[in-house]
């Protein structure tokens, strides 16, 4: 594995301490965890905004922080971009002014402001003041501005938190395309597991300032300590779905998976997988978590105790897992 980002951080601010050590390849990485886990602090540290003495950070082989060698590259020289939750556009500049601000200071050129504006569909807004933009427009301008600064690594602190429903999905789509097109390594903070599955190839799971697990999404998601981090209703597994639009990863909640011990017929559900039971774990709530594995990967299903007995669920048993497509 060629590590694009290697970090070994030790940060203490007031009563909170963050200790995070990970090495990740280029690509899209999700930083996932409940609020207060230290996700924003992790990003601030990587961007150099917390000052020196935070540990060790290496991006694409370039050492940005090394506390032992008293090395600290300041935020404006790190080549690490950061898109803030609140966009933080400059109010004294127009949209164009904001884009030019980044482009003029970039050490290399990936796209021109005009191309970026077209790409993010903001060319109609270029001469507008940022005060009159909607939340979604602000997010897109912030993203375009960050891209124009041509960073080696782009950090995004829940840039879609102001968006909901279709606009959120559209924004995630833009992010994913942006990564595919410009090959820009990204670290995206989110507290929604669906975002992780939809966006990221690998993840860092944080809880209370500590890394619970880091690595490929499917691998981390398969760990019981990661599942314990989730709200019970969010527990599940990432699944790669193929649709006419292509392959996409989605989070399938255990509560949305039905099990059958014979091949189902005459069902409206589009997603039916033949899988084998890997483990059957009784939960404190009285229900049963069934871990399944099949050609498509790992899946989780939550069933009642009675159902588990009726279907004689035990490791090695073959069952059919049914997922309603709109649950995805």
């Amino acid at each position, binding site marked *: 594995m060629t590590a694009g980002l290697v970090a070994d951080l030790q940060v203490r601010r007031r009563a909170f301490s963050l200790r995070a050590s990970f090495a990740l390849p280029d690509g899209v990485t999700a930083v996932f965890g409940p609020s207060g886990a230290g996700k924003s602090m992790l990003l601030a540290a990587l*961007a*150099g*905004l917390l000052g020196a003495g935070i540990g060790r950070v290496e991006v694409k082989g370039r050492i940005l922080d090394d506390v032992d060698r008293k090395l600290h590259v*300041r*935020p*404006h*020289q*790190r080549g*690490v*971009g*950061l898109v*803030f939750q*609140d966009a*933080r*556009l*400059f*109010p*004294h500049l127009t949209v164009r002014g904001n884009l030019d*601000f*980044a482009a003029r*200071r*970039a*050490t290399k050129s990936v796209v021109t402001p005009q191309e970026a504006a077209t790409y993010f569909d903001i060319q109609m807004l270029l001469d507008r*003041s940022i*005060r009159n933009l909607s939340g979604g427009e602000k997010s897109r301008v912030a993203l375009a*501005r*960050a891209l124009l*600064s041509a960073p080696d690594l782009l950090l995004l602190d829940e840039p879609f938190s102001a968006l909901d429903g279709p606009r959120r999905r559209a924004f995630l789509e833009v992010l994913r395309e942006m990564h595919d097109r410009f090959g820009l390594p990204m670290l995206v903070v989110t507290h929604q597991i669906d975002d992780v599955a939809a966006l990221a190839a690998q993840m860092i799971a944080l809880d209370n300032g500590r890394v619970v697990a880091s690595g490929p999404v499917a691998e981390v998601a398969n760990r019981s300590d990661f599942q314990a981090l989730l709200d019970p209703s969010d527990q599940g597994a990432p699944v790669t779905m193929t649709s006419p639009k292509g392959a996409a990863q989605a989070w399938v909640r255990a509560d949305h998976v039905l099990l059958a011990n014979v091949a189902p017929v005459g069902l409206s559900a589009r997603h039916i997988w033949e899988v084998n039971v890997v483990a059957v774990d009784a939960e404190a709530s009285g229900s049963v978590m069934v871990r399944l594995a099949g050609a498509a990967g790992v899946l989780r299903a939550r069933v009642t105790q009675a159902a588990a007995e009726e279907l004689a669920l035990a490791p090695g048993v073959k069952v059919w897992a049914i997922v309603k497509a709109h649950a995805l």
Partner: protein
Amino acid sequence: MLSANEWSVLVTSFGVASRAVVWSLPIAIAFAYLLSRRAFPGKMLLDGLAHLPLVLPPVLIGFLMLLLLGRRGPIGAWLENVFGVHLAFTAEGASLATAVMTFPLTVRAIRMAFEATDRRLFEAAAVLGAGPVDRFLTVALPLAAPGVLAGAVTAFAAGLGEFGAVITFASNVPGETQTLPLAIYAALQMPDGEEQALRLAGLSFVLAITGLAAAEALQAWSRKRLEQ
């Protein structure tokens, strides 16, 4: 309408007040910016220094300036030897005394503007590749522009009325250092000078009101520009 003498007083006043603003503004901006930043060693001292002219008697400021910048003062002697410049009893001296006296007002207005700007925008500028000086010039200063403008106009208006420090350091030389308040004072010293003093007082009043109105208009304009 105005006599030649009155015109000369008016021109001197404007010259002294505007040069005072030009001299003090860059230093006031630097002070205000430093004071608006997080704590640093010597911040209290700097803050106190900036406020000194506000709490000391103006005559004392003028006297201190004479001691330091007069021909025999340590700085004054050096200035004369090296640059051939002398400040005491000159129009430049009157401007300097005015600049010193209006300095606290200017710093206050500008500092408030810096403190009101969203600090998080500086972080945004930093991660886009802007260094400290760059951030100051392209983010902090433009965002504080209405405050800087307000500080400059206030300093100018207050500078027109500066008396104690100016008369002590620069004396009351007609056509050179005799500003409006000094001319009123001089008129009052003369027998039958009351009418002249009243005319100058009226002039002073009109100027002050115009200055205030101009300050308001400028501020409203610059704020509107920022909020477009």
